[in-house]
């Protein structure tokens, strides 16, 4: 209980220290068309090409992680069995 309380108190202090001197983002910032954004890319849907590419890369990395984990599990079993026998 004490621990939880002190962590909360710490987070609160950090938040106070952190929130000083900040410029707030307002709803107007979302509507401010004077600032250039990639609107064309979004309106013609090409952004989804980027999304697709990024997701494929991400899926590939995760696939590789899972394969590596499977391999390690297999080796783990082999080594530990050997140790059990000897």
């Amino acid at each position, binding site marked *: 209980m004490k621990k939880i309380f002190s962590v909360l108190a710490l987070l609160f202090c950090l938040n106070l220290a952190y*929130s000083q*001197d*900040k*410029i*707030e*983002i*307002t709803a107007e*910032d*979302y*509507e*401010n*068309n*004077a*600032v*250039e*954004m*990639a609107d064309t890319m979004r309106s013609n849907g090409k*952004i989804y090409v*980027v*999304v697709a590419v*990024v*997701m494929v890369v*991400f899926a590939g990395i*995760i696939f590789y*992680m*899972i394969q*590596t*984990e*499977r391999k*390690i*599990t297999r*080796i*783990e079993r082999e*080594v*530990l069995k050997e*140790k059990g026998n000897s």
Partner: protein
Amino acid sequence: MEKKWWKILCVAILTYAILGALLFDAPRLNILNETIRNLHFHVTMWFGMIILLTASMVYAIRYLRTGNQRFDTYSVEFANVGILFAVLGLITGAVWANYAWGEPWSGDPKQNNSAICLLIYCAYLVLRNSINDDQQRGRISAIYNILAFAALIPLLFILPRMTDSLHPGNGGNPGFNAYDLDSRLRIVFYPAIIGWTLLGVWMISLRVRMRKIQQALED
């Protein structure tokens, strides 16, 4: 696969975070334009690094208290992936700075200090490799780890705030931590931190198991 649920959670959160980062509405801000979306990739690397290096330090303390070799392994592997995140954070920062500040490395206090932190942690790995005795290596590197973490906090969070800096959140400049993160960014940003950190923990768990096999083979 051991304890699947958090890995599935990690992939789900990261999928959401990447899609959200690319597709959700972002505030239209001068200078930053679309690059505000880097928030969900660059800044999360540093948050992830801090979490992982904190865990590394906690395991270093636990190692010193118990002498259990397992904690030493955790400590070094948390530091390894923490360093990986720091390297990625520096590189992504340089890419972003090239666009937003005009040059990849402008000797900004935040950049310099994070490079110093990186070197301090690289020295930790060098130190470990230079000692052969297991216990000695564990103890000396655990103490160094705690010192390194103690240097990290002022270097990253205090010193850059005391001078002028281009980097957001320091010295009252118009970058974007100076803007209060708003709730529409937060709904992607906070999950992204958790997601990347979980991915880091996943990598760590694989490396720890690898080390255990290595040790079992050596015995």
